[in-house]
């Protein structure tokens, strides 16, 4: 019991962030029209590409003789970048269509 309490107070910052972010995440997309479901999914997909930061840190910390870490880290950086860049570009392409639609509307 005391262990758990200790852990909570030690990591309270992180716990606060997690709880608040859950509410923010739910709150901000609560009223999305169904037309935007897919672009929103795609945009969120790009945002979780933030995992790339972890890959960069892994890569940057790897000793130059630790080949396992180097190879896996390098792969992770590539995959993470794919997620970020591909995600944002695909989302933009989807939304481009919506913009064109607005133009003909005006």
């Amino acid at each position, binding site marked *: 019991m005391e262990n758990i309490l200790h852990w909570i107070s030690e990591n309270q910052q*992180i716990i606060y962030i*997690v709880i608040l*972010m*859950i509410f*923010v*995440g739910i709150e*901000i*997309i609560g009223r*999305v*029209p*169904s*037309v*935007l*479901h*897919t*672009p*929103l999914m795609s*945009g*969120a*997909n*790009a*945002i*979780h*590409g*933030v*995992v*790339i*930061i*972890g890959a*960069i*840190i*892994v890569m*940057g*910390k*790897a000793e130059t003789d630790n080949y*396992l870490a180097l190879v*896996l*880290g390098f*792969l*992770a*950086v*590539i*995959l*993470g970048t*794919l*997620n*970020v*860049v*591909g995600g*944002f570009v*695909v989302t*933009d*392409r989807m939304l*481009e269509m*919506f*913009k*064109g*639609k607005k133009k*003909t*509307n005006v």
Partner: protein
Amino acid sequence: MGEYILTVCYLIASVTFILGLKMLSNPVTARKGNLVAATGMTIAILGTIFLYRDETGTNLHNLGWIFGGLFIGGVIGTLAAKKVKMTSMPEMVSLFNGMGGACAALISLVEFNHIANEILLTGISTGYTGKVLIIVLGLIIGSVSFAGSMIAWGKLNGSVKDFSFPGQNILNLLILAVALGAGAYLVINPGHPFLLYVILCLSLIYGIFFVMPIGGADMPVVISLLNSFTGVAAACGGFLYNNKVMLTGGILVGAAGTLLTILMCKAMNRSLLNVLIGSFGGNKTGATGGTTAQGGHYKEISLSDSAMLMSYANKVMIVPGYGLAVAQAQHICHELEKMLNDKGVEVKYAIHPVAGRMPGHMNVLLAEADVNYEKLLEMDDANDEFKTCDVVLILGANDVVNPAAKNDPASPIYGMPILEVELAKNVIVNKRSMKPGYAGIENDLFFRPKTSMLFGDAKKVLQDLVSEIKAI
């Protein structure tokens, strides 16, 4: 100094993620929102590369490798995203999502490897509990997301077929339980590196089996769910490095993704559980219960009759579906619409929220062909207008117009709101054959007296229709 700037960078990035998502949920600001989030991401990445200091205050090295990886990933990602056809967008999203999951899993592998080396050196295997727990969680979630996304990707492009066997759900849970058990053991005794690879394999298998039995029509929901999984996996990385931007970004996507998944299910009037273990499309035994008209009689209509019918109608409503997307018939469809307009026929489109393979699929497709936004009616508006229509032309849509959803409680799609095309005077259904739609259920509509079938590939049929109408 550098660290303080990095903190500010991360703060900015976190705010842009929240703002970006917020803007993405409104059609007017959506595109800008995507750019805002991308800018924040760039700031966070560059900040990390140049300003990050570890506990001992040393810079990141291997910058050549990092930029090499960024370059390769960036070029491939951009090319793939630019080249992909509008119809294949959902599978692309799935693919990129899988990459993120794999990235999270790889980070876990490398970090555990560091710990294992330390244990080998010092012989002390205590004090790693928290770290190992997060590593194992990141590994499991990341690899499930990766494997699942790959299967979803394969299903959407047609290379992976639905596959299920009796007791699969139980076996799935068993695999997951063993993986979690092994993970728990590893957390307590971190001195067994090989266990990590066992967990990796089990998670990959679980991911595959998890998505395998789910019908292709439900893939957008599954991708959205896996998307939120990857978000949580990224957040695990945030825990591991005490990195606030990974944490906020990951949890934000995890929460928003989960809600989005539920919203998508709601648009189909089904529960998430029903999608995951339900039998929509995957398990045919549940689907046969609702067939009343199997083997009934349907009537065909010729091209010239259809052309005649539409040319002399006052109002035609087009109901597009996946068949239109597959045939890439959006441009010729627009041409038909213009041609009918010139003849004084009012033409509108009825868009079901889940027509096609993703929500908004039809809107995007028709916008690509320059169809006027005002001609696209949402389901409720369309349902009000059907009774004033002379002809409804259904182009490759099936389940979204299936009356079983309204009047057959035994049908797996019972309760899903549909387009009530039967209110119109005539219904022409263009399909490639009498085969059931993606949900694998028979459609009573095709056997109704008002309905006539016009078989053939949507593009071919529309081209022929256009030339027939020209000739009139």
